[in-house]
């Protein structure tokens, strides 16, 4: 009996678990190499590993600057963005399912995901003056074919910290799509509310909402001092 216990104790000392995954897969969602700016935790991507019995995805979502990263085991993976997610068109198969980006992971790897955004916000100029943040920018329509979408509104968001979006903001100004006079020069301004505790800067981003698309396209984060 005691011998059995000793054997059991001794064999239990041996580690029987696998090493933790250590290969880092990261990258950005890009249009012609330029990262697309998003709202944090709102646009998901799914990573599937081939060769396992179950077919469930590893769920992920893009960060505010369009980046993603995952620590995985080495192996063959595929990446998709589910239909209807993101302010862009993901490649689709003829059957209408999201097409696959194949990744063979062996050690760390950076994979940028090329997509077609509906629009891009170009040349955003943000500056503070007279208790306001003023912005001018142009919007460039990228998708012109049958999939084209109209602009529902553009918005200027400001926040005290670096997370700035429709869900994280201190103040915002909206301009309806129909009220845009010149898409090459859109002005927006938002009054800076009283900041508690006081600070002499805010972070600002411009968001562009499309008709029938949930996720907004943003401009890069900018710190505005005043």
């Amino acid at each position, binding site marked *: 009996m005691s011998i059995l216990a000793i054997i059991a104790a001794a064999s239990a000392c041996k580690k029987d678990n696998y090493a933790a995954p250590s290969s880092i897969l990261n990258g950005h969602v890009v249009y012609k190499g330029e990262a697309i700016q998003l709202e944090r935790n709102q646009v998901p991507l799914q990573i599937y590993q081939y060769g396992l*019995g*179950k*077919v*469930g*995805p590893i769920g992920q979502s893009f960060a505010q600057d369009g980046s993603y990263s995952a620590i995985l085991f080495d192996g063959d993976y595929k990446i998709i963005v*589910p*239909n*209807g*997610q993101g302010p862009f068109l993901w490649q689709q198969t003829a*059957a*209408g399912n999201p097409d696959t980006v194949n990744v063979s992971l062996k050690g760390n790897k950076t994979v940028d995901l090329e997509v077609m955004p509906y629009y891009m916000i170009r040349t955003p100029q943000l500056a503070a003056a007279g208790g306001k943040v003023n912005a001018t920018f142009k919007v460039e329509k990228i998708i012109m074919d049958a999939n084209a979408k109209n602009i529902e509104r553009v918005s200027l968001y400001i926040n005290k910290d670096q997370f700035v979006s*429709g*869900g994280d903001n201190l103040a915002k100004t909206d301009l309806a799509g129909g009220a845009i006079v010149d898409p090459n020069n859109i002005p927006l301004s938002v009054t800076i509310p009283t900041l508690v505790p006081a600070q002499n800067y805010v972070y600002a981003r411009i968001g562009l909402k499309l008709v*029938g*698309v*949930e996720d907004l396209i943003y401009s890069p984060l900018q710190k505005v001092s005043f």
Partner: protein
Amino acid sequence: MKKQLTIVTIAILLAGSWGCKKDSDFLNIAPTTFLTNDQVFSDPNLVLTVLADLYNRQEDLTSLDGYLQPYSGNTEPGWRSMADFSESFPSENGSSYLVQRTGWGYDTWRLDWTRAYVYLREVNLFLQRDSAATLLSADDKKRFYAEGRFLRANYYFEMVRRMGGVPLITSILTYDYKGDASGLQVPRAKESTIYDFIISEAEAIKNDLPSDINMKSRASKGAALAMKCRAALYAASIAKYGATTPSVALPGGEVGIDASKANGYYTTALAAANEIITGTAGAYALYNTGGNLSDNFSNLFLDKASPETIFMEDFKTGGKVHNFTVNDQPYSISDEGGDAGRLNPSLNLVEAFEKLDNTYAPLATKDGGGNPIYYTNLGDIFAGRDARLAGTVLLPSGTFKGKGIDIWAGYVLADNSILTSDEAGHTKALPGTTTPVQVVGIDGPVNGLELRSQSGFYIRKYLDPTTGSGRRGQGSTVAFIRYRFAEVLLNAAEAAFELGQAPVAAGFINQVRSRAGLTTPLTAGEITFDRIVHERRVELAFEGHILFDMKRWRLAHKVWDGAPTTVTDLVANIGSSTKHSTQPWGLWPYKYYNPASPDNGKWLFRETLPSLVSGSNRFLFGNYYSLIGDDVIAANPKIVRQPNQ
């Protein structure tokens, strides 16, 4: 030795005599601890016990006794199943997450897949055994069979409105243990196919069920028609309004219904409603016993003999009871110290109740110049409103079990500062005096003080005034009404309106409204989509409709758009179907203390966002159809994922 031999001989003799019985019969002894299928299906009373279990396992997202959460096995209490969507504030510290999250996970509102298909399999088995029974009378067999089909169709209705098209299994699938389960993998049916199934089942069984309005906790002809009517209306509105959200659809039709089918479904809904309204299923009518209209509306949910109730989940002392009254009774007159006041209706809902002249207006707290309005009596601010307001919500001026409740937030002093306490019912001395007086109601509101009202209101609908119903050990037996006549009228009104028959719609909607004291009828021209949305929200509040209505009209992502709700938002656009409502506001009453003013001792009110509210509801496209888990898809690769997930 001799003795042993004798024993052996006797033993052999005994064994020999027993051996006459056939070996195969030796272990074949009828069990005494359970009944076989043949025994059960030979006695109608025993069949009814099987059926009672199937009734009891129907799923409701909103109910008085709560429900078993999918997968986890935790119980969601009844009050909390009503405490979402900014229609109320949860006054229980452990439930603050309801107002602190910024939206819902895709898995919210899904059904437990395994539990659902086990249930459906058992209903299918029930149907097979009932139809094979030889010792039941033909009438009993027929009625049981129809009840089983009703329960199956109603269950599929619950599945389709949460998850869209699901595999439609109407026979018993059996695994052959040969290692290949692909024969059991059934793909999802189209969303329209499931709705068609519910409609055709209801039509097929309605005449096998009793036309008896006293048959309320078992399926009746009225229940089958009410289910058909609601299902057809849901399908119709998904077809019509689904066109506004084209991304909420799947190419195979598992989610989304073709817009061309809308009129057909609306016609079906109107016809089914008319069958009930004209009395072919029994003399259903709106509950109207005269007297105070608010009390009448409240009693409709308490009186089990109400001619308005078509199908309900019943409760009975000694059998199944629930704790809704325990959890939601007013704190100051609670039967059970430490259990009360959890469900607090929001100002968002309260101000949606119209004035008696059919107009919408916020509860007036300030005059045109921005100065507070002083009211002599606490209830004056709510005067002249839809009687359903005081019938649904326990107002600060309301009574329960004949006793007044005590909701007020403190004194407003002459310099506009507030004298109050963070302890309910606490006393302090007013300025210039030395005698301490009570400075805040025993029922609150105090921010963060659970089990009292934090919005300024309590729930009245379903609250049971029976002695002892607020005690944990006793509980309440108030029934949860699943289908009632007023909803059928509103279904008919909506279907008629969508079919371009506004005068017909006005006729139906006005019946419901006049029962609530809105005696000036709406004209055909005044019937709009917004009116219909509004009427369902106030008539059917806390009855489990708001989520599914907002989903089928594809309004959910507009109403719960994730942007915080400001006071300006709150008081504007009341009655608009797209008015956003993402955070539950409260209305806090204060006493004015300024001996030098003529308004001294009067009441004023302030719109207040309870301080625990930090999130705002955001409904995503992916929330329209709840997640089908990866485990389910892994086990059956023919199942397609929901859109936008």
